[in-house]
């Protein structure tokens, strides 16, 4: 292809830009609950986010990347014109990134996932044809946007109910917290490891059977639990703090738990959202390399790495400010609730990541917060804001789509040399 190097360069640049945007804005929502409930300081949150976003993106980001890359568009429609797909993917990336930048400037509740999916579908419909879209797959994705907040809401509801039953409504909640909190920590380590093992690690040379994965997950759960138990032992119980609010010391123990769920949340977010940046890059790279539109080919590890680095860069250059802002505004959430919301959301997101479904981490988290709220756990939830967030995709999908179409024709005008269709 004539402009191969250009295409690769642009893909890498746009992908990095998009990943940067995700790290700068999106990560904040995943981390802010931990900062707001004071389970983590800003510095700790950034460290946790950097390490686990990277790990999630690199280890478990493959499935969703595959969906974004070749699960939405039927590439056989452009067999004779692979360049069209290149323009489209570049345009989609640029459109989603620009839209996100604009939206986060304005404080609009916009999801990266909705932007990129809207952008890809948009350019495909206008640039290639309505039939080039796998509508059933898009339907599944759209359905997952409705199901994922509901599922995480259900999970959060039951997790929080179990906390009430097992710990908070007991005569000596402190004793019961020491007893049961390690089990929740086990669940965090176990679930994250299991989903990752079952779906991910072929690209780093680990191919395990189901039973082996299960064993690794159990070991990982026990390892996390042991760290948790040590951390809980180190907590200083201060009886004087009890006078004003009798659960202050119990919340300290939940604070330990929330450090772990924060790690899980960052991991889950990385595993699902890195695809929004690197999926299109992967598509461009494989077309440029092979010259044809390959439906199935291995994902180059460096592309996932690019996305992971981009996210951490965004976090380091701008994201920490956003985390601080958002965290400061969440003052009503205590660790016993925050953890339930995070565990539910992280579990839902990693399951989606394992299944290859691109979902919105923020929506999932909002669903989880509502779930805790329905269990009478949260002082006040602003339903109007919840509704606005949940309905934001009605604007985001067409906005991403229209921008993508514009960029598509722009790129086509600059580079296209193939037959006129």
């Amino acid at each position: 292809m004539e402009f191969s190097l250009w295409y690769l360069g642009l893909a890498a640049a746009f992908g990095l830009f998009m990943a940067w945007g995700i790290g700068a804005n999106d990560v904040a929502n995943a981390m802010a609950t931990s900062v707001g409930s004071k389970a983590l300081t800003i510095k700790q949150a950034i460290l946790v986010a950097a390490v686990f976003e990277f790990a999630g993106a690199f280890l478990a980001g493959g499935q969703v990347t595959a969906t974004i890359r070749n699960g939405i568009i039927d590439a056989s429609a452009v067999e004779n014109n692979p360049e069209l797909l290149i323009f489209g993917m570049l345009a989609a990336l640029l459109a989603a990134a620009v839209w996100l930048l604009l939206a986060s400037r304005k404080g609009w509740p916009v999801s990266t996932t909705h932007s990129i999916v809207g952008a890809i579908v948009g350019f495909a419909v206008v640039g290639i044809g309505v039939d080039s879209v796998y509508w059933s797959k898009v339907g599944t994705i759209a359905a997952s946007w409705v199901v994922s907040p509901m599922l995480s809401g259900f999970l959060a509801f039951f997790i929080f109910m179990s906390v009430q039953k097992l710990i908070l409504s007991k005569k000596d909640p402190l004793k019961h917290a020491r007893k049961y909190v390690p089990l929740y920590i086990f669940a965090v380590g176990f679930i994250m490891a299991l989903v990752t093992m079952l779906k991910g690690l072929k690209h780093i040379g680990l191919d395990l059977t189901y039973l082996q994965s299960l064993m690794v997950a159990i070991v990982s759960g026990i390892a996390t639990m042991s760290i948790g138990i040590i951390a809980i032992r180190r907590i200083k119980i201060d009886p004087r703090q009890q006078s004003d609010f009798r659960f202050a010391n119990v919340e300290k123990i939940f604070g330990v738990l929330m450090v772990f769920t924060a790690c899980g949340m960052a991991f889950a977010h990385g595993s699902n959202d890195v695809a929004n940046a690197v999926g299109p890059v992967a598509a461009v790279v494989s077309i440029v390399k092979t010259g044809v539109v390959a439906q199935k080919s291995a994902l180059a590890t460096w592309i996932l790495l690019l996305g992971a680095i981009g996210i951490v860069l965004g976090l380091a250059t701008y994201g920490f400010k956003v985390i601080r802002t958002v965290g400061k505004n969440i003052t009503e959430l205590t660790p016993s609730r925050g953890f339930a919301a995070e565990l539910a959301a992280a579990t839902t997101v990693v399951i989606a990541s394992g299944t290859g479904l691109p979902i919105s981490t923020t929506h999932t988290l909002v669903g989880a917060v509502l779930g805790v709220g329905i269990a009478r756990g949260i002082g006040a939830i602003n339903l109007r804001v919840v509704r606005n967030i949940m309905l934001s995709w009605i604007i985001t999908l067409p906005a991403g789509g229209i921008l993508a179409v514009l960029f598509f024709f722009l790129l086509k005008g600059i580079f296209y040399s193939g037959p006129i269709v």
Partner: protein
Amino acid sequence: MSGSYFSAIFGQSPVRPLQEHMGKILACVSELTPFTKAVLEGDTGAMARHHKNIVNMENEADALKKQLRMRLPSTLFMPIDRRDVLEVLTMQDMVAGSARDVAGLITGRAMQIPEPLAKDYKKLIKRSIDACQQAYDSISELDELIETGFGKEERKRVGRLLMKLDVIEQDTDELQVCLRNELFKLENELHPVNVMFLYKIIDRTGNIGDRAQRVGSRLQLMLAR
């Protein structure tokens, strides 16, 4: 501000403002102790001073009440019913209103409490403030109630506090009856208009305990949901 939309889903819980309001009410009502002392000693300067304090604190509580009302849009989703919060707030507000009534009546007419009534009247004031303290303690449990998700142990605890509030309120009722009986015996020796107002003062003072108890009843309704 970028990213701030997510934090906006967490509205401000009405619990702490509600507790602050009740704290202000308690402080206002407690001012009746030095006020009554001044009345019985005939120290008009101190009376005026404490009356002013009561009025000021009542106004401050009023401001807190309005603030909280403004902060409770109907789109808030809360573990306690919005209507219950507003009703508790109104009840709390009325407690301070009674305290102001009493101080206002006595100051306005430069009234004296007849010596035979003094002891029981002081007792009534003390028990009324006790009732407010008890109501305050119960309202202070609201954050613990929400923390436990209205857990069984915590409900029991609040239930005990409310039972004690009822007992205190009964005390104030009995003290009122005693005071009326004593006043009845004195009627012929006093100026009729003064007698009329003394009955009124006893009545208004009794209101304080009644209304404090009603704060508790609204809280009980929250538990029952």
